């Protein structure tokens, strides 16, 4: 194998190693604990979606009726 190719492969191995170390050293327990404490405190698990709730200002099927909340199912109703 020629030198430039070997250097490139070593660079790739180094990058994979860095990725592996980031993956293994990530504080999973601390993160899970914080997020679980938040869920326990509020008793809510849905994601904080950045959705405009009044996006559909009219009900397409029954225009006389109010529009349904589109993300309602996420809020466990």
């Amino acid at each position, binding site marked *: *194998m020629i030198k430039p190719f*070997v250097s490139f492969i070593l660079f790739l191995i180094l990058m994979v190693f860095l990725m592996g170390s980031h993956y293994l050293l990530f504080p999973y327990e601390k993160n899970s604990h914080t997020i679980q404490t938040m869920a326990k405190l509020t008793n809510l698990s849905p*994601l*904080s979606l*950045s*959705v405009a709730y009044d*996006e559909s200002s009219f009900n397409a099927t029954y225009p006389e009726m109010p529009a*349904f909340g589109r993300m309602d199912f996420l809020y466990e*109703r």
Partner: protein
Amino acid sequence: MNANAFWHFLTLQLVKERNKHFSIILISMMIVFLLSSVLFISSSIRFSLEETLKVQPDFVVSRTQGGTAIPTPMEWSDELLEIYGVSHVTPRVYGRYFFEPKAKSFLLVGVDFMEEQSHKNLQVLITSTDIKAFFEGNQMLVGQGVKEYLNAHFYKDAYNFVTPKGKFQKVTMFKTLPSQTNLLANDMIVLPIDLARKILGYTDEEATDILFNVPNTDEWELMTDKLSALHYDLHVVNKKEVQKSYANLYNYKGGVFLILFLILLATFALILYQRYSMVYSSERRHIGLLRALGWSINAVLKFKFTETIVVVSVSYILGVLLAYLYVFVLGAPILREIFLGGQNLHNVVSFVPVLDFSVLSSIFLIYALPFIASVLIPVWKVSVTDPKEAML
């Protein structure tokens, strides 16, 4: 040709023709990067959701009228407690509060801090030396997104909520919730339960819904029937249904990208096939030259196969590395809005690194097999022809 000479020639060839390989690696890397990023985001969100669902109560009951939810009477809690096998009955008060000028909304959540468990959880989340100060007067905890939005609208320390009765209710911001909770609590405002009731317009005898546990999972099906028989307007959801709805939602979003990826891959494979089978292509002449120098068909195929494997592996590794960096280090700007939205409050999420090795190996196989086939089939076709013809 011995192994050393083979690899020397192969790497020499790869480096010499790096410009030609560079374009192929770049396109392949982008394809792998896009698909891996989407799957990384999807699996990370799913992981976080599963973690939160682990600590969620098993059942949620609410009252409905005409298909929409209405306040649930608190007396239902007592009825639930009487059912054998039910434990930890907790009312929940929450709702959306619209900030009028731009119709942005916050999620208001009422918490009963007098409960010992809630108090402990609060102490874990808020590392304040003076937690007693939180219970003096009307205070709230706000998510990072809420804090940023209110600050931008000149509400630095407090906010005046308008109750359904048209009265103002001033609430002071006590602390911001930790950034690790942004995935759940970016648009959240946590208040004492009585204050939340006042702002959302619930009476003391009402809640948004009621939660409870049924420790024996074998009883879940029966419990749903029992509960439905209690009141005609009672709506019941169990944790398994919520889990299913989340899995479907994120599988669907990931699936859309998988289809796009397959279309892209098929197009790319066709381009590669075309490139190698073109009558006057340099690859064709190169193969003819190797054959004229005395290489067997087998040796040519082995050479081209190894060359393709190197190109495929390099582009795959680079694509996955780039996707990892983009999602788990940079927080997937732009792409995260497909999953989390971007119309309400600005959300900066740090995704928990989750590598699903079965998905990664499937991506490699789905990507590598058509790639190798689209190179090897035309190479084999050229190498079985007469070298003179191939070099024309």
